[in-house]
């Protein structure tokens, strides 16, 4: 239990620093295609243990979101998207529930549930997170196409980066 809290705290700080110090400065699209941003911090919310209480989940998500906002100098934007992601995570988890349900103390990782399940789970949450974020960032209903374009472009970049993260750190629990 204590080991788990330490691991989660470490992951919090690691993802926050990767996001805030490195990915914040990465501009993949260049001047002409300014639609690609890499988001890795939502992975923190996705990797919390399945049994995490909903309130705790939302609070932790708010914490990482507002911390990312400090680096991005965009008060509320990332926090709002994170809170949204934490809110829908239980629904997504029950939607992709494997046969036989979740075991106590299980953590939604590739090792415990298999590659296909993992990709599906991450993709759903990530795309919803990005869509919420870019809706708030663009903030105009009339420019919904740009929101969708940004969501798709950033989704591809982010999922690749999260894959890289999994390969390097291989989070188990």
């Amino acid at each position, binding site marked *: 239990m204590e080991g788990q809290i330490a691991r989660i705290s470490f992951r919090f700080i690691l993802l926050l620093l990767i996001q805030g110090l490195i990915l914040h400065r990465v501009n993949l699209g260049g001047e002409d295609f300014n639609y690609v941003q890499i988001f890795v911090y939502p992975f923190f919310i996705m990797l919390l243990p399945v049994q995490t209480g909903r309130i705790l989940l*939302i609070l932790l998500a708010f914490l990482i979101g507002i911390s990312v906002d400090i680096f991005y100098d965009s008060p509320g934007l990332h926090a709002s998207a994170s*809170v949204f992601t934490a*809110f829908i995570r239980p629904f997504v988890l029950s939607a992709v529930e494997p046969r036989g349900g979740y075991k106590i103390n299980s953590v939604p990782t590739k090792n415990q549930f298999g590659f296909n399940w993992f990709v599906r789970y991450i993709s759903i949450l990530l795309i919803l997170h990005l869509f919420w974020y870019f809706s708030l960032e663009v903030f105009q209903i009339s420019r919904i196409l740009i929101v969708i374009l940004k969501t798709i472009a950033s989704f591809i970049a982010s999922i690749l980066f999260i894959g890289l993260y999994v390969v390097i750190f291989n989070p188990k629990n």
Partner: protein
Amino acid sequence: MQNILFFLYRYGYVLLFVLLQIFCINLVVRFNPKQSDIFIKSSGAVSGWLLERYDSVVQFFNLSDVAENLASENARLRTQAMTFQEIYGPASTHTDSNATQQYTMVAARVINNSIANLDNYFTLNVGARDGIQKGLGVIQTDGVMGIITDVSNRYARGISLLNRDTKISVSIQRNHFFGTLSWPGGNPKRAKLSDIPKHADLVIGDLVVTSGFSALFPQGITVGKIINFELKEGSNFYDIDVELSNDLSQAHYVYVIKNLYAEEQLEIEDQRN
């Protein structure tokens, strides 16, 4: 009671979600310039529509006042026109390419206004489609109303003279000393005039008019009159109290001033900076 607790236990996370979202979106709208701009514009379009409906009902009750004001203004303008005709003869037929028109006015109705706050704002029922832009001056029949700051398609919002951000370049009509008019808060009929040097000779009752230095207002629009002045020891400038000639609480129909030369003036003034 038990049911409430159970409900909270069961669905408290929804409540938390909603509360945190309200908090976050509040942060977004308040501290991110782009989003706050869009928010003000679109909420302005909604509230402007509501305010206009409301105002169209309320204005029935002071129609007679408004009509009287407009009639007296009409009378004054007619007198002026007649005086000019007497001096210069009937309307001239030749065109003087030097004497082109510098200012045009757009009539507008005030649909929202406040005077009691520390910073006051007003809303007009004209907007971008009527050619209104950011930064135009607004006058009443008998004085200065304020400056437009936000424009949507059909509505314009501005800072009233009764706002700490409003600074208007004015001069004293009799001797042309110029200074800055601002509002310190409090009494909606009193404003402060600063930057008049101590060698100016002032008389209580001196008329204060717009200076025409800024691109906002033409020269010579009455602003108010001096009711009190003092020279603080060691200061080079007078502290002057001005009584405003217009009553901002009675603003119904106003004029937005478009300065056709504004761009040219600002361009040449910016060249040095």
